[in-house]
């Protein structure tokens, strides 16, 4: 598998899901369960990605400059600071810590 394969297959999958929504009969939506699981799937995957991206180093779990950066980011999101500013500040915190250690 190459990166192109990953990119194309994943794009087909996500596009097919978007089309599928328009093909599903509306009565399916009246059931709460599918909608709730779709919502929670998003939450679970994003949280898992945050954990892996913050602590993962290959297959090892490490604590490094990324953790303080993410804590700062959480504080800024809580203060309703715009997304892009938070992302830039998080990068700056990690880069700054790495530069001085």
């Amino acid at each position, binding site marked *: 598998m190459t990166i192109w394969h990953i990119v*194309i297959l*994943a794009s087909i*999958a996500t596009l097919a899901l978007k*089309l599928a929504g*328009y093909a*599903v009969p509306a009565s399916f939506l009246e059931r709460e369960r599918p909608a709730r699981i779709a919502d929670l799937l998003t*939450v679970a*995957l*994003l949280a898992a990605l945050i954990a*892996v991206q913050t602590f993962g180093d290959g297959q090892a779990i490490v604590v490094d400059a990324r953790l303080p950066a993410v804590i700062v980011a959480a504080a800024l999101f809580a203060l309703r600071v715009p997304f892009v500013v938070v992302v830039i500040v998080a990068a700056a915190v990690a880069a700054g810590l790495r530069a001085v250690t």
Partner: protein
Amino acid sequence: MGEAADGGADASRKRLLKSPAARDGLAVGLATAVYGVSFGALSVAAGLDVWQTCFLSLIMFTGGSQFALVGVVASGGVAAGASAIAAAGLLGVRNVVYGMRMKPVVDTGGPWRRAAASWVTIDESTAVALAQTDERQSRIGFWVTGVAIFVGWNLTTLAGALIGDAIGDTRAWGLDAAAAAAFLGLLWPRLKSLQTGAVAVAAAVVAAFTTPVLMPGLPVLVAAVVAVVVGWFDLLGRRRAT
């Protein structure tokens, strides 16, 4: 969008821009387009080239899935390809729900309009459409938001990919922390209930604890099981509160 093409295009464009839904859509579009810079930079940091990065924004065009794909590739490389595809797909599952909600609102044309509508069916276009009070404003909000984000997101993705390509060692610039912060930004608005908060914490713990023992990419998918279990039985859910 079709109405603006026939006679009196100028007048109808003015009317369109005066509509509150169009203003909402353009504002959300501008704000979201800026994320594209972070996506572009993170994508090349993960090892994708500029073309692959732009392909994702053009064809996949659903931010969460795009971030997920490059996040898994960043941690596991090409070997984690299957997990990267699965993670992107699972994050795209909510678009099925959005499509079902939007179909009666926007699907008044033929198959081409339906294809275009599904292409731009994402969090933001659905949210703006659902926030409107009448059907016409919903339709305007959906299309204006979807098209504005599509154009902006693709332009800024290219810009971000070129910046990311130019700066070399991405860890020294803290781009790995920026990726975590970007995921946090996508998650934040969803943490409104005890249920979503609990799922987020549990999923993060599961992913962290399984990282040393599973192939790269798999911990994210195992964590998704938390959502299925909690969602299926509606644990900590509204049923108890009402």
